[in-house]
């Protein structure tokens, strides 16, 4: 905080919508970084700036993006959810096993989503009424849910195909969800991501519930004395996260119809949190936007894609992703230190 503000001088009262303000927005930095990256790749590689490749990037980031949207709610509410990778695995496996057992598509998907709801509810209850820090509660759930998936499948891979008992029309629709294209061009996964992100943006920016999420994360006390039920809001955020992780897991299985409880979605929670944080959400709550999260997800997706196109080894990719996280969040912190 500057000296002037501390001593009571007024911040400029004309905080209008100007270019300067636009550039000051948290998303601006991430957007510029993404732009620079895209420009660089357009010149450095032949394959980057093609509609096919860009749509491919879109598909690749969709599942991560759907989960990051949920994580945005959780982080803004001042909590964190480490169990999403396990939820991703369990929900996909549950849906897959039910399809193999001959269930129709919709009930099987609903059952998969239900596992996400239950996990989110448990996470939320433990972190609020259970008074556990969500870091601890969801760390426990990470293991519990993974364990449940292993027990459920006895550690064996689950492959969704007709030979294993899936009904042909169910199999076709399920496959379309994961592998299909809308109008033969747009990957269905990307369509789902866009729908989820758009709905989430509307809820977070314009609805009373979205307001409450920001209020609860900004100051739980202020929210409480205003009459907002802090616990309900947090539990809702966890449930939303659970549902979206489950949905991503189901889509993941639809894309790659074989899954193994011991491997699917392992460590995914860290990618999700990283993308959300790069997009400007704060681990201390109260800050973050869907737009920022989308940009964060895209940065990681474009980066992975670009490194592959440039023929960089996957080991170096991993290292670069880590650098991006530190630099992206660092730029934010270092610049606020200077100005705020």
């Amino acid at each position, binding site marked *: 905080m500057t*000296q002037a*503000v501390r001593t*009571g001088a007024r911040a400029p009262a004309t905080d209008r919508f100007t270019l300067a303000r636009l550039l000051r927005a948290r998303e601006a930095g991430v957007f510029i970084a993404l732009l620079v990256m895209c420009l660089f790749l357009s010149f450095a590689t032949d394959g980057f700036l093609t509609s096919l490749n860009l749509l491919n990037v879109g598909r690749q980031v969709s599942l991560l993006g759907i989960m990051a949207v949920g994580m945005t709610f959780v982080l803004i509410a001042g909590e964190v959810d480490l169990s999403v990778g396990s939820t991703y695995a369990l929900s996909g496996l549950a849906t897959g096993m039910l399809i193999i057992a001959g269930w129709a598509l919709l009930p099987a998907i609903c059952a998969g989503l239900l596992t996400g709801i239950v996990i989110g509810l448990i996470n939320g209850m433990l972190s609020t009424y259970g008074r556990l820090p969500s870091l601890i509660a969801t760390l426990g759930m990470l293991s519990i849910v993974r364990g449940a998936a292993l027990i459920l499948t006895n550690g064996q891979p689950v492959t969704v195909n007709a030979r294993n008992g899936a009904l042909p029309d169910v199999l076709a629709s399920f496959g379309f969800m994961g592998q299909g294209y809308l109008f033969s061009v747009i990957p269905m996964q990307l369509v789902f991501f866009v729908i989820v992100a758009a709905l989430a943006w509307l809820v977070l920016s314009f*609805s009373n519930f*979205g*307001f409450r999420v920001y209020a609860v994360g900004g100051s739980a006390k202020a929210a*409480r*004395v*205003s*009459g907002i039920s802090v616990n309900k809001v947090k539990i809702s955020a966890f449930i939303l996260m659970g549902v979206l992780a489950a949905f991503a897991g189901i889509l993941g299985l639809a894309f790659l119809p074989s899954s193994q409880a011991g491997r699917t979605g392992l460590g995914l929670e860290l990618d999700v949190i990283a993308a959300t944080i790069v997009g400007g959400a704060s681990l201390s709550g109260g800050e973050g936007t869907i737009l920022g999260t989308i940009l964060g997800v895209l940065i990681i997706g474009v980066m992975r894609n670009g490194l592959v196109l440039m023929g960089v080894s996957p080991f170096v990719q991993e290292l670069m992703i880590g650098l991006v996280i530190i630099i992206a969040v660092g730029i934010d912190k270092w610049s606020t230190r200077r100005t705020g």
Partner: protein
Amino acid sequence: MTEQQTPAPIVEISGLTKRFPGVLALDRISVAFRPGEVHAVIGENGAGKSTLMNILAGDLQPDGGEIRIDGKPATVPSPLASRAAGITVVYQELALCPTLSIAENIMMSDMAARSVVSLVPRDEMRRQARAALTRLGMGTLDPDTKVSRLSVAEMQLVEIAGAIRQRARVLVLDEPNSALSKRESDRLFDIVKQLRAEGVTVIYVSHHLKEVLDLADRITVMRDGRTIETMDNDGLSEDRLIRAMVGRELDTTAQWSLQPQARSHEAPVVLSVEKLTAPGLDEVSFHARAGEILGIGGLPDSGKDMLGEALFGLCGREGRVTIDGKELRGGDPQASLRNGMALVPADRRGAGALLTMSVANNVVSASLPRFSMAGFMRRGAVRREARAQVARLDARISHLGQKLGTLSGGNQQKIILGRSLVTNPRVLVLHEPTRGVDVGAKAEIYAILRGIAGEGVAVVMISSEIPELIMNAERVLVLRNGRVSGELTGAGINEEAILARAMAS
């Protein structure tokens, strides 16, 4: 006001009791708040004021007794119920979302009352917030400004604006001006008077007796969880209030009147500061002699609040600071400690105290090398030293292993003082030595400081409380705009002289 005209109380409390583990925080207290009055509640720390306000706010539930609102028995089971009854508490630690805008904060209760699936009415929020701000004379503030960008005073006013918007009939201000400058508190008082004129009951919790006397219609004194008496503010004096608060006479002027100064006049200069320049400070020069208490006064933005940190080396600086002729390197608190300077910072919780550690560990934490051997703590020596300091400072603790955070403000301050003394300082710098400390403990701390000075230590007391300077300092330096604007000695030290040098432009 005659009996017949006395209006029926809006909130009436009778026999209210609240027990915490091991403490009876409220012991059958009774008090009535009337519509349209400013009702001050005063008392030492731990008297039960905060507990009472938390019960009114719905944050705590009483164990017994009755609350009547508008004459009808009522319960306040939640903050929401409290606000629904027209009661709003503006806390000392503000209940605002720093990440949200002014408008969003002011309208938060409205939002909570609406359906969770409704839309956020941005324009209406902005309009309503602007109206509420205008009513407080803050119409120039943009309702879209993030609260984190406001000054503490503005934040407080935003919270009050939120309260007014909800048509609060009872507004509780808990230590509202501990963070405000003179001008800002004047503004607050105008607002309080305006609200009273509009029929709002203002419950005003404060340590500042002068303000209470200026502002309040009636004053309730609390002590040890009881309401001692409620007085009409008619010909009351500060002495009268202090008497009620401490339950005994406490002569604030005679007891600590100035001592002969001849001795320290001739004593050698220990601390010498030449052209000290640091954030908020501009070529400040002064010296302090062995055995003297040097007071430093000034307004909140005068630079005095930076002086302690700059002297101790917590921030970068230019200029020379020497102790016994030896120059201290800037930006190196370790060197300051080694060379005989100790600092008792103003922000006890943030900077001074290890609240989660024991009393004994706090006492030795600034002199670890002396109390360790081959990397291990010498527990016996630690306990001996801690016991000696606790006894010397008359700190009231249950045992040496007690966590510092569980002590009262006054006792915490004594332990922090003890920690400084263990370093055997030649110069002891204190910043707001009695902030958040109750009246009784204040007097004890003053006596301790005099004792320390008597042993030949140069004591530099930086304080916003002018009476504190007058009572204790043999010499007072007044800062303004980062520079020394005056030096007062002996009989020249009085409130008018200090204020004149602090405020004149």
